[in-house]
């Protein structure tokens, strides 16, 4: 048997350290994925839902006091022209009556029930991306120009939900940071403990004339290897869990899109075991240098 310096300095509880790192990396992978997913969903909601308004315009003249006398179609055209002239508006279209009826039917119960109802004209308004922040001003202007219209949706309406999403995202970030700190601390302590158990061997090798750089390299390589095995296992388990979760959500259509991690997110998650391994190697290097510096 050839005993390399790394083999001489290896220890029997590498499996425990690797297992511990595996669990921590697994948790960090899940928490990071959750954080990224929540952030992505919140962003999509803000862009896709926060960028839309719904304007309901009563078609019966005289319903709203002070409304100008006009035919219903003329009032809709006037409203559409007014909306399309706003700088924040990218598109404004009337929702066809048939679609409106289809939307309402589940609530009313039957098509007959819809007859005789004074349905308003509904106009869907899509805001320009740079117009989201000015949506409140637009709503104010519409209140003046279309006093009998009801305006729904837009960032203001979504704000409570988005605030909740942001809160959850912040919590997920906090969890990831705590896990990352725990992972880093565990790696540091496990590496130091490993070195402490090998201190006599290190001293012995030192007395036998081993080069300090060789001892430091061997310890750092051992720590790196253990961390890569543990962290890699944790990452693999975490990735499998996320993929399984993705498949479970596959039946959900839009939900599936919301829960799909982009490539960048996978790269960030894959960086976790690598970062853990780098911390382990660096800690081993620093701790080994300290031990050797204390030796004559």
């Amino acid at each position: 048997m050839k005993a390399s310096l790394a083999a001489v300095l290896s220890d029997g509880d590498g499996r425990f350290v690797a297992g511990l790192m595996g669990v921590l990396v697994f948790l960090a992978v899940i928490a990071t994925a959750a954080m990224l997913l929540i952030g992505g969903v919140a962003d999509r909601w803000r862009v896709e839902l926060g960028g839309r308004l719904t304007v309901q315009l009563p078609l019966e003249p005289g319903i709203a006091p002070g409304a100008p006398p006009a035919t219903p179609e003329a009032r809709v055209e006037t409203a559409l022209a007014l909306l399309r002239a706003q700088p924040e508006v990218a598109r404004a279209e009337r929702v066809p009556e048939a679609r409106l009826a289809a939307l309402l039917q589940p609530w009313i119960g039957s098509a007959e029930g819809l007859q005789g109802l004074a349905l308003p004209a509904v106009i869907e308004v899509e805001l320009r991306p740079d117009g989201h922040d000015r949506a409140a001003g637009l709503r104010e202007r519409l209140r003046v120009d279309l006093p009998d219209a009801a305006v729904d949706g837009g960032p203001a309406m979504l704000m409570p939900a988005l605030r909740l999403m942001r809160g959850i995202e912040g919590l997920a970030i906090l969890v990831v940071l705590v896990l990352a700190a725990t992972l880093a601390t565990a790696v540091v302590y496990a590496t130091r403990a490993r070195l402490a158990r090998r201190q006599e061997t290190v001293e012995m090798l030192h007395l036998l004339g081993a080069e300090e750089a060789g001892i430091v390299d061997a310890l750092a390589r051992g720590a790196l290897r253990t961390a890569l095995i543990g962290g890699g296992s944790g990452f693999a388990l975490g990735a499998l869990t996320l993929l399984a979760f993705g498949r479970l959500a596959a039946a959900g259509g839009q939900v599936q899109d919301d829960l799909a991690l982009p490539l960048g997110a996978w790269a960030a998650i894959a960086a976790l075991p690598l970062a853990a391994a780098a911390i382990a190697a660096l800690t081993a290097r620093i701790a080994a240098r300290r031990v050797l510096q204390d030796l004559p």
Partner: protein
Amino acid sequence: MDRQVQSEPVARFEQVGLRYGRGPEILRDVTLELPAGSFHFLLGPCGAGKTSLLRVLYLALRPTRGRLWLFGRDLAAAPRGGVAELRRRIGIVFQDFRLLPQLDVYDNIALPLRLAGGDEEAIRADVTPLLTRTGLRALAHAFPPALSGGQQQLVAIARALIVRPRLLIADEPTASVDEPLALRLIQLFQELNRVGATVLIATHNERLADRFDHARLRLEAGRVLHERASPAGGPHRAPPPAPRQAEAVREGA
């Protein structure tokens, strides 16, 4: 005798003092020289400071005062990176053996050669005959925890001899073996000495030292007394004992 004491000392202590922390001085004003090719016994009662002196000599401790030259180099001025090379010229037999339990007998003995970057073929060519000479061949793949005290002592000695050190330092190397094997071990050290190594053996066994005609240093209360100068030559008085196998080594002791 083919031993030739050369002019430049392998080690030179000048007014060396040593204390552990804030405790009393363990070594006081130690001034001595170990000429190249010399053979010394370091005698003294337990607690006299023999192990501490050896630890300073094999660079496990730095003196708290005084100066130390090793192989002509002033240790106070030697760069840290160069000390490892000096250590590789020294063979050490520790009082507590300090074998690596995770390595078998062969690998323990081969370790200093591997640290020096030797290739496996050359290492095998060196280790195998030494295993035979020390009677450890049958135990080559045994691990230290499975060995008796005497067998561990032999492995520790073989590990020190394997590098053909220029300076051999042995701390109570015969403490765990019976008298005939103790004589055999001293004979091994003498063989190394004959081919040029400087040897310093610490022992409290004065009867054993009396059987050999080598120079003596005596440590008393941390001070070194030169009892007898290094002789110019002359055979040791003890006849070489018959070779023994390691299995016969008395356990513990």
